[in-house]
């Protein structure tokens, strides 16, 4: 079966007078129908830009220079505004990082949901109300009738995120993109939202593209994971593969900077900082920070090589690197 979403050679940049900041540099991946795929990486690695580019919500200053985004075989980048608008919501929905500010502060929850239900399902009045209650129940909100009359500021962050998920699901999308859905929430609520997303994914047969910098969220929720660094996917594969047998020094660095129960309480960090996007290192983008780097890394960009079943990495020395 053909993948529901295929991104090929996606390159995007912010042109500026003092150098072009290339935020995406040849991003390539595919997502199968019904899969949950995570994108992980540091701030500035291009995770959010990748997500926004799928919905064509990139900031106006950001230009796509090359590549294709195929959704069910048709290139989204070639679609006009009107047809793209039909895909948004109807086929692909997105939830954002900060749930409270993702809801119009002047609308009661009822009105927010009503607008989507009317636009996408043609529901009005009592029908829309019934559908809203159903949606809110579905995302696990108690007493939906009461929630409908609330403004976003009257709800907690977790409730707002549930409403936001209901809002994104109201139009019955096939693909849900979640950009850091748990980052702004406190830890106990994070787990609830993750469990909710997992359940909705199962029950609705959703395809879920999850963006996070939290590896635990990936481990909990995803089938596959893609590791991004400086606008490139440097390693991707099934979650168990990547966690147990990482084959890219950056992934190893990410994994070892997590707190563990067995550890001595000290966290290891990846040395250095994400470089300025206007001065991308030549060769392998990670080489200035890589403990395994050798001369070749600064000169040659590593090819994408298969390191296991469904497991791809971009490192000259992937055979040698090990956690």
């Amino acid at each position, binding site marked *: 079966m053909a993948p529901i979403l295929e991104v090929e050679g996606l390159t995007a940049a912010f042109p500026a007078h003092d150098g072009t900041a290339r935020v995406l540099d040849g991003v390539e991946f595919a997502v199968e129908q019904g899969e949950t795929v995570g994108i992980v990486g540091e701030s500035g690695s291009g995770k959010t830009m990748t997500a926004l580019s799928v*919905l064509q*919500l990139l900031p*106006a200053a950001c230009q796509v220079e090359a590549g294709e985004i195929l959704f069910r075989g048709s290139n989204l980048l070639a679609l006009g505004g009107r047809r793209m*608008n*039909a*895909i*948004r*919501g*109807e086929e692909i*929905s*997105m*939830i*954002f*990082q*900060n749930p*409270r*500010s*993702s*809801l*119009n*502060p*002047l*609308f009661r929850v009822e009105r927010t949901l009503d*607008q*989507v239900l009317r*636009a*996408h399902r043609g529901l009005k009045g009592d029908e829309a109300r019934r559908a809203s209650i159903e949606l809110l129940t579905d995302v696990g909100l108690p007493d939906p009738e009461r929630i409908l009359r609330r*403004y976003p*500021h*009257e709800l*907690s*962050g977790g409730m707002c995120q549930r409403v*936001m998920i209901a*809002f*994104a699901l*109201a*139009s019955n999308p096939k693909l849900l993109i979640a950009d850091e859905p748990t980052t*702004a*929430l*406190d830890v106990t609520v994070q787990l609830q939202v993750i469990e909710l997303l997992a359940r909705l994914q199962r029950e609705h047969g959703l395809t879920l593209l999850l963006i996070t910098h939290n590896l635990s969220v990936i481990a909990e929720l995803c089938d596959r994971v893609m590791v991004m660094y400086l606008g490139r996917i440097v390693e991707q594969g099934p979650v168990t593969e990547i966690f147990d047998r990482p084959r890219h020094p950056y992934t190893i660095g990410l994994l070892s900077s997590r707190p563990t129960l067995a550890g001595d309480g000290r966290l290891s960090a990846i040395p250095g900082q994400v470089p300025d996007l206007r001065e991308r290192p030549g060769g392998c983008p990670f080489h200035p920070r890589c403990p395994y780097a050798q001369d070749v890394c600064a000169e040659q960009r590593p090819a994408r090589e298969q390191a296991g079943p469904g497991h791809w990495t971009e490192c000259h020395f992937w055979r040698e690197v090990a956690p």
Partner: protein
Amino acid sequence: MSTSTLAGVPARAAASGLGPRALARRIRSNPVTALGFAIMLTLILVAIFAPLIAPYGPEELDPSNTLAPPSSSHPFGTGEFGEDIFSRCLYGARWDLTIGFAAVAIGLVLGCSIGAAAGFIGGALDEVLMRIMDMLSAFPGFILALGIAGALGPSLQNLIIAIALVNVPIYARLMRGSLLVVKQSSYAMAAVGVGAKPWRVLRWHLLPNTWAPIFVQATLQFGYAILDAAGLSFIGLGIHLPTPEWGVMVSLGIDRIATGEWWVSFFPGLMIAIAVLGFNLIGDGLRDLIDRRQR
């Protein structure tokens, strides 16, 4: 947890202050703003009921009693034709409030439309519109109004147009600025993300979230509009005699101050001062009440 509650508190307070009843309660609890509203309401009532309150007609002359100082029969004295200054001050509220309201309304609609178009569509249109606005605001407001009123010729209508045009860049810039801010908001992006059409996003998600600073500005501008109207009429570019407009009345008595008949100019001038003060107090109060960034 702590961040979400902390963030929630001011937002909650601000939003509960947006309902009409809650707003009324807040206004009452702030004496300065309440004073502003009291002044505004009094002026509106005076304008409406002027014929009932005023002891004389606005153009009623008593040639036997000219330039009389304030007394019980003429509380503000009389002018050089024997007109009753008090009655004319009351009738003046009709003219000045109308001019202020019309000028602000026209300026608001024009300015907000221009600002919204510039901010929403952006690109070349934004550049062109905002550079025109820059050109307009390069002139001191009163000088520009003077030029426009002078070019159009003195009349009530032209006076309103002149003052309105001076205000257009203020609203345009405010509207564009607010719009650009809310355009970046997650809820606007979320609305686009579920397939809302552009005009829908503008109508329901952007514009309703921009009104607060504009509303405050309009209230403040109302006072200045009255001041400008009076100023233009004072130098003869606005309304003419015998219209009981405060600026005209001040100019009528200006020569008399030196000769001791201060009341001819003083009382209409006081009316202008009170009206401007009232609207400024309201504007300042509303800014504190509505604008959540200032809390």
